[in-house]
């Protein structure tokens, strides 16, 4: 990994007129450069994506046919827990922080992030957390087998692997909060003169709102897991009815974090897509102002809907009604965003390079996930579908198809800027089509399994679920192995290929395209002149 990071940045050394202290490994450990740190975030998240992906393939191998084949039920539970924790906290969140590090300073004409040293620390907190999570598999009792939701009292029963997961969550939370403070400060203070907030690229807007969501929600999660820790070891009874506590209290606290977390993942994805679709439609983004309001509205409402994850816990009827109506409200700003993207393409001049294909894939699949979300918002229907594979399908459509496809759209879009080379378009398109087809083979049948009543988080299932499970497993293998293609594409682009111009996409707008490709190690040491018409897509 280290060697490959070097290769990634060989180009940058040549452009760098300043030199920067240590070389070799120490360069990466001590770097304060937003581009270096962005790259490290992206490589880290890809490594975690492969680890979490391998776990999902282990899960799908067990589920290929009825009966227990390869895994014990306890190990199966550990796999599904770590798969989720690693994918959410290790893969998707760091990926978008990587994009933020690379792109926000370049989009707003800033020389670097506001707190460059803290930025380094934010990143280097991640590997210890990842090691804690993965190493917990090898301690006595194994990793936490509770699902990523860590519900007590089950999480009270777990071994030391649970404590390791709790500390990992603490560390990841610290990293996220520091990263968020950095992003907010950078965006609010370091824009080039003339770039008012309402002329700022939309990716920066999505991250501004996301960073506030992180600062508001991560301490809540840290509090929840700390209470778990003291219940486990220090005799408190926050979640123990025998001591005057309530297990359901944990769920309220967890989901008060957990629901904003969904938008922490989704909003930056919306931001990326809001750059890619205008670029390949050769048009300005439709409804910029309403996009900003929609992002802010989604961010705000996300704090008021948490108990829609808890319809079956016995919350009162009035509570169920309130959370149902509040959840339905989210459909309105989300709909506005989808309609804006669609109208951006309308009467454009469309081309279909890989970033655009992934953005379109995002649009289709995220809309499906959003619409099944509307079905799940209805309490009475949700009670039929809660804890079934319908929910598994729903959140993979919004998380994998929503966040991952959007991250790929961003990766292919900005790769020429990062490496200075055009990527292999043929391989990129192959990667897209394989991902799109296999993703749907893997996850669409899970809607049917859920409707028919197959619970999630079970290592073995009744025979009427066998056929769709086999299809789903085959799709997941295809999807998993297709993702290795992106590694080939990125290595090729790092090594060579057609030279990328400063603005390789003729429809792309924004300050990042005014600097050469690859972007020099230091950019915008002087604030660049600002042209509102070219400010963003």
């Amino acid at each position, binding site marked *: 990994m280290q060697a490959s990071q070097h290769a990634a940045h060989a180009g940058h050394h040549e452009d760098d007129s300043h030199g920067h202290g240590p070389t070799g490994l120490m360069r990466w450990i001590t770097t304060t450069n937003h581009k270096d740190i962005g790259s490290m975030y992206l490589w880290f998240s890809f490594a975690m994506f492969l680890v979490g992906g391998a776990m999902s393939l282990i899960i799908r191998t067990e589920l290929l046919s009825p009966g227990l084949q390869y895994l014990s039920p*306890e190990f199966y539970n550990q796999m599904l827990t770590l798969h989720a924790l690693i994918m959410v906290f290790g893969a998707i969140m760091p990926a978008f922080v990587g994009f933020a590090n690379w792109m926000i300073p370049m989009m707003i004409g800033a020389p670097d992030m506001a707190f460059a040293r803290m930025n380094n620390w934010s990143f280097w907190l991640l590997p210890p957390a990842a090691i804690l999570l993965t190493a917990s598999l090898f301690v006595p009792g194994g990793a936490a087998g509770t699902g990523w939701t860590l519900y007590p009292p089950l999480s009270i029963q777990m071994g030391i692997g649970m404590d390791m997961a709790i500390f990992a969550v603490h560390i990841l939370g610290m990293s996220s909060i520091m990263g968020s403070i950095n992003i907010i400060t950078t965006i609010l203070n370091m824009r080039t003169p003339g770039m008012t907030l309402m002329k700022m690229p939309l990716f920066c807007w999505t991250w501004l709102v996301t960073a506030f969501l992180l600062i508001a929600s991560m301490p809540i999660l840290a509090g929840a897991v700390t209470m778990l820790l003291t219940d486990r070891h220090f005799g408190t009874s926050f979640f123990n009815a025998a001591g005057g506590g309530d297990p359901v209290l944990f769920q309220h606290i967890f989901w008060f974090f957990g629901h904003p977390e969904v938008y922490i993942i989704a909003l930056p994805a919306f931001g990326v897509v809001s750059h890619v679709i205008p670029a390949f439609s050769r048009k300005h983004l439709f409804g910029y102002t309403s996009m900003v309001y929609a992002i802010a509205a989604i961010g705000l409402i996300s704090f008021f809907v948490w108990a829609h994850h808890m319809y079956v816990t016995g919350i009162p009827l009035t509570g*169920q009604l309130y959370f149902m109506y509040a959840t339905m409200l989210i459909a309105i700003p989300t709909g506005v965003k989808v309609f804006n993207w669609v109208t951006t393409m309308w009467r*454009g001049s469309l081309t*279909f390079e890989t970033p655009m294909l992934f953005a379109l894939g995002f649009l289709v699949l995220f809309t499906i996930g959003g619409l099944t979300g509307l079905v799940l918002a209805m309490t009475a229907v949700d009670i039929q579908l809660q804890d079934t594979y319908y929910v598994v399908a729903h959140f993979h459509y919004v998380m994998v198809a929503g966040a991952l496809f959007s991250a790929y759209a961003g990766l292919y879009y900005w790769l020429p800027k990062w490496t200075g080379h055009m990527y292999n378009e043929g391989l990129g398109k192959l990667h897209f089509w394989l991902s799109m087809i296999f993703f749907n083979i893997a996850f669409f049948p899970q809607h049917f399994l859920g409707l028919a009543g197959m619970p999630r988080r079970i290592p073995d299932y009744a025979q009427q679920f066998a056929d769709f499970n086999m299809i789903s497993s085959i799709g997941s293998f295809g999807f998993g192995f297709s993702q290795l293609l992106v590694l080939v594409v990125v290595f090729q682009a790092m090594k060579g290929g057609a030279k990328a111009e400063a603005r390789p996409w003729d429809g792309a707008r924004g300050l990042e395209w005014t600097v050469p490709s690859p972007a020099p190690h230091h950019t915008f040491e002087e604030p660049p002149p600002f042209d509102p018409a070219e400010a963003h897509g």
Partner: protein
Amino acid sequence: MAGLPGLFAGTANAAWELNLQAPATDLARRVYDLHSLLLWVIVVIFVGVFAVVAYSLVFHRKSKGHKAADFHDNTTVEIAWTVIPTLILIAIAFPATSTLVQMRDTSQPDMTIKVTGYQWKWGYEYVTGDAAGVKYMSVLSTPRDQIENKVPKGEHYLLEVDRPLVVPVGKKVRLLLTSSDVIHNWSVPAFAVKTDAVPGFLRDTWFRAEKEGTYRGQCSELCGKDHGFMPVVVEVVSAEKYAAWTADQKKAMAAVADDPAKVWKLDELVARGEKVYTANCAACHQPNGQGLPPAFPALDGSKIAKGPKAAHLDMVIKGKPGTAMAAFGAQLSDTDIAAVVAYERNAWNNKLGEVIQPAEVKALRGK
């Protein structure tokens, strides 16, 4: 897709089932219809939005020489696509609300049954009605060999239990749910019932089955190792059959009630204890007593199983807080506890030759 179930309706266990299970209560039918309505709404929205996208993709492409227009705001359409979805949502909210209100109305039940979740089985106790006082455990009956693929799987693989919940047809059955260890969830899709069983709290839910038959569901909240192996089976029977079943249960309960004063011999105690062990202990501590360390310790040669009798009994009665070791004091009778502890102290290599009488358990419980 709402039209499809007609095509695919076959047995309830059709392998290619595409929709919710066939409803067996009035409430479940309303939920089914609400879902069908929503499905149509989202299909129409999806088709509408992506028809526009498809038109753009085909006609507004650069390769056909289409030049990009220059517009990026239109207040009228932006207001329209905010207001129209709002109206659709308000329209949906009406049936969604009334269905939910019906779902939560547990008043005026014909009978009440208490359901207790255990790792990993269900306990049923009839609280009111003719069967008041009847109580028993309901455990997965699928043989281990089927799960391990050593023999072919049966028709109701993983969805069968030794003793189902038996209820009369057409009666409003109220369930009180709780748990003795972690959160479980009692769910029967055909009744549109799914409610958490939370330790230390009571939740309630209800159903009124319209047709006799067997209805199956599963635990729907991750509850540890054997979460996938604690199904729910409900037998809905006619009033006559229910009366007969009730009478049988009461007779059987009277017959098996142990004489508390009986003095047990070692071999009968161990024989009884082995049955209790298989039903309650073997899932974790394994039939060979080796356990699955470190989460589930071995009993063969363990300090507790070979140590003082009182500490061993205490562990079984009170459990070990913070671990999966449940307190069996409330689940098992004095005789069963005496038997299972005697079995554990005499099985495998723990040949202590000790006899434990139910009276000793009774004495310890008092402390």
